[in-house]
């Protein structure tokens, strides 16, 4: 243990503690910018500098480990002056269009400038305007706002093991960009959007579909159908005046209806449908000696990751489309038929916790209905903005029901939104398919929680089914390497690109806060226990769609509408 003094207050901490951590232990807050809990320390922004007695220069507290007898001041005149000036310097090379910035009032630089008392800037703004990177299908990068803190890079490399972005050039020309400045649309970016969560400013945002959706709603010749993903109901309330951890399913339906959507449906219906198809596929693979382990396919970020980095494992991935796309292809066929609406007049909108879903909806093969299966994808943040824009008092809305036909769901569907949820949901139906009896104990505790890789064994009729769950692509890589080298013991693996699963998706309210993500997950688990039906195969609307339209899981029609193929992107020029 090491004893030191911070602002004349004694603190005893273990060796290797940083000064920043030591200060936080005694509730002394040191402002930070490039530092972020969960990412490696980097030490580039210098905002967290402190004065150490006897040293000629200030020292960055995030990088500096404590030593015996250190006397530290975190708020001396010299320190405060330095911090103010650093903020001024950063602002001088930052496109200061704060009022119109998407991150206005949710920007760490803006907040620091305010909190540190920066009320003027001695340095004139010298931003050298460069074009935005609009090449990606889901994510826009604005280098004019970038402050080169490197958080997005560390996220992309360390947590996601993708490495689509890095620093290029040096000196004052340094910039975050893709390989050869080709743009996010032309490199291995998987569109997971985790970089958006860690960006302290508005340099990375989703490609907005808000205006297109408004236009569709206002067009009377269009029948605008909306679906909302499982994890939206666990996060939408956060920026609309409700406490984190509030389930807002009923208010969400009410809000969507008031925004003017012609039909308010639910992706959860399609999640149950996905389980029917994916569980059947797994049972078929196990019974017929097919390729195992089967990998889940509902995460479009993970799919693109596999297409770039593990094309040899594409046969392991379930051929099932994601719930969003299953819903999309049914809405312009089954729904159109049942509701007697011209499919061409339908605009299919989804609300997703995800940026990669924007990419998925644009994949050329996603047109099984004969039309674009999903026309527009809104993130949770975009829906939040639409609700605010339209002046709805979200917290005061009544709980309403969704419209019939494609909205009823079971507990199995709702837990899709969190890591491990797809696995649990699938097991409930796999058990039924193999044994023709119902699984009595529905919760599989070992696959819950925020451990990077979770595994469990489930006994089904004397057969031990080995399963694993990974979230965050660096974790998934470990399981994928096992498969590649032929030592994977598993039958079924669930992979979600974002840490925490969809509750932490790239389209959710901003922040890389694993505790909050876990809270959202718990909301979904709790909804599961409260729903009357908890197994996908019990869903009455699912029974209807098979009886009236699809026939049975893995039928010819199912294959046509609900299954897909993947592309080897490794050698794509």
């Amino acid at each position, binding site marked *: 243990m090491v004893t030191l003094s911070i602002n004349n207050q004694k603190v005893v901490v273990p060796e290797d503690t940083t000064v920043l951590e030591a200060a936080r232990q005694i509730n002394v807050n040191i402002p930070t910018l490039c530092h972020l809990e969960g990412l490696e320390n980097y030490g580039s922004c210098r905002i967290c500098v402190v004065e150490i007695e006897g040293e000629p220069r*200030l020292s960055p507290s995030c990088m500096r480990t404590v030593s015996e007898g250190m006397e530290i001041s975190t708020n001396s005149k010299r320190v405060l002056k330095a911090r103010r000036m650093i903020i001024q310097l950063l602002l001088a090379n930052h496109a200061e269009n704060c009022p119109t910035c998407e991150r206005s009032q949710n920007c760490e630089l803006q907040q620091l400038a305010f909190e540190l008392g920066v009320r003027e800037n001695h340095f004139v703004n010298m931003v050298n305007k460069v074009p935005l990177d609009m090449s990606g299908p889901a994510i826009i990068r604005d280098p004019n706002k970038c402050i080169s803190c490197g958080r997005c890079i560390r996220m992309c490399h360390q947590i996601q093991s993708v490495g689509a972005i890095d620093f290029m050039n040096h000196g004052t020309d*340094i910039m975050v960009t893709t390989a050869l400045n080709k743009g996010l649309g032309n490199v291995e970016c998987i569109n997971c959007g985790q970089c958006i969560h860690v960006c302290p400013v508005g340099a990375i945002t989703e490609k907005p579909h808000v205006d297109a959706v408004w236009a569709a709603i206002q067009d009377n010749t269009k029948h605008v159908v909306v679906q909302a993903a499982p994890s939206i109901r666990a996060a939408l309330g956060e920026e609309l005046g409700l406490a984190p951890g509030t389930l807002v399913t009923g208010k969400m339906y009410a809000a969507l209806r008031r925004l003017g959507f012609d039909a308010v449906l639910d992706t959860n219906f399609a999640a149950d449908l996905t389980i029917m198809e994916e569980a059947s596929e797994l049972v078929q693979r196990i019974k017929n000696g097919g390729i195992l382990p089967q990998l889940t396919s509902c995460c479009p970020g993970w799919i693109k990751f596999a297409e770039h980095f593990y094309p040899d494992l594409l046969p392991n991935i379930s051929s099932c489309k994601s719930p969003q796309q299953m819903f999309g292809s049914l809405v312009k066929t089954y729904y159109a038929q049942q509701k007697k609406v011209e499919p061409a007049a339908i605009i299919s909108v989804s609300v997703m916790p995800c940026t990669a879903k924007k990419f998925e909806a644009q994949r050329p093969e996603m047109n099984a209905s004969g039309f674009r299966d999903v026309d527009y994808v809104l993130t949770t943040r975009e829906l939040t903005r639409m609700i605010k824009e339209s002046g709805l008092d979200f917290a005061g809305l009544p709980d309403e029901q969704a419209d019939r036909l494609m909205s009823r769901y079971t507990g199995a569907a709702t837990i899709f939104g969190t890591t491990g949820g797809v696995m649990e949901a699938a097991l409930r139906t796999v058990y039924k398919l193999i044994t023709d009896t119902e699984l009595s104990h529905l919760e599989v505790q070992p696959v819950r929680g925020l451990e990077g890789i979770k595994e469990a064994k489930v006994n089904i009729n004397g057969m031990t089914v080995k399963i694993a769950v990974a979230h965050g692509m660096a974790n998934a890589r470990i399981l994928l390497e096992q498969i590649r080298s032929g030592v994977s013991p598993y039958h079924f693996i669930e992979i979600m690109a974002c840490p925490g699963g969809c509750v932490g998706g790239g389209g959710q309210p901003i922040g890389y806060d694993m505790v909050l993500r876990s809270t959202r997950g718990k909301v979904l688990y709790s909804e599961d226990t409260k729903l009357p039906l908890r197994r996908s195969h019990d869903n009455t609307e699912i029974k209807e769609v098979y009886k009236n339209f699809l026939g049975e899981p893995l039928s010819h029609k199912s294959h046509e509408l609900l299954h897909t193929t993947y592309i080897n992107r490794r050698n794509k020029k």
Partner: protein
Amino acid sequence: MEELLLKNIRKTNYQNISVYVADGGYQALKKSLFMKPEDILNEVKKSCLTGRSAAFPVATKWSLTRQNSARPKYIVCNADEGEPGCFKDRLLLSRDPHRLLEAMIITGYTVGSQQGYIYIRGEYTNESQIVENAISQAEENGYLGENILGSGFSFHIRVYQGAGSYVAGEETALLRSMAGFRPSPGIRPPYPVKYGYLGKPTVVNNVETLVNIPTIVLNGGDWFSEIGNPDYPGTKLFCLSGNVNRPGVYELPFGVTLGELINEYGYGVRGELKAILPGGVASGLVTDLNIKMDYKSLAKVNSLLGPGVVIVMNKDVDIIAISIHTLEFFARESCGKCSVCREGIRAGLTIMNRFARNEAELGDIELLKTLRRLMYDTANCVLGQAALNATVSAIRLFRNEFESRVRNQSVW
């Protein structure tokens, strides 16, 4: 005085190992291999040899690396001579490459390393080729490689060529560059002696420092410690350039005055003296010819010795242009990681350009000084800490030139 460092550079064909050996080359290595490593270390300690860029005692660096139990250990020769106006290592690399190899092998033997690297600046293609040839010759003749001269000691040297980055000359950045990363200076501690190349204990020494080693081994540490300035024994190479009549590399003891260097060796200033950058672009300008060229004396006048790069400027030189020139250099060569360095240089350059256009505000002078203070206080490495040194020293010495460029406010 007798030349220790440059003694061989005028000899013909000295890059050839047979010429080097015939002239007594690799004798120090032979002697070393019969000595105990701790005895060599002791001689180096007695010599009081310090690193020629930051004045850190060589023996201390070596013994810290030697004591470390981690394996393997590496010897890295810093030949990334990127300082503008610095051309001394180049001379040694191209004219006396075997002495550097010999020094590195002795260093490896002393600290317990079997692998050395020479990090040569990217632009030095010719020098790099000469060193590569010397390595092959040394290997063919048994001075380098497995079981050197039958002693059982093995040592290998490989050349690593940088891509031409100035900041890669900073040792932690250099080691990162060698490992395949961007050359951005690391946070110290830990120092390379503990956590160096690939995370292993590493001795990083400059070419000029290392070349002293064979001489010390042959003549003993005591002999070396009596040469030149008692505070900093041995000799120093000074690269003299700018408005002088005879620019070049001069080997002189520490503590020689600027006046002696410029007038006696450089045959005087071409034109009338205005200012001198005594330690490269990171040092502060000076005007006093009586200043002694050693670490302490230059620190006293808010400047630094750096690698011994003396750039002389006469009255034709515009001090504003010089400040802008140094800042443009740093803007290009900073690694760009630290916010204060990157943005501070950008801001400094913006302000200086206002002076160049006669559009500066009176407050800009104070702003530059405050900015320099901030950068010294908070930048991670010496590049950022020193980027505004030349500018602020120019303000101190030639304030009237700055004031004359302030926008005339009495328009009415």
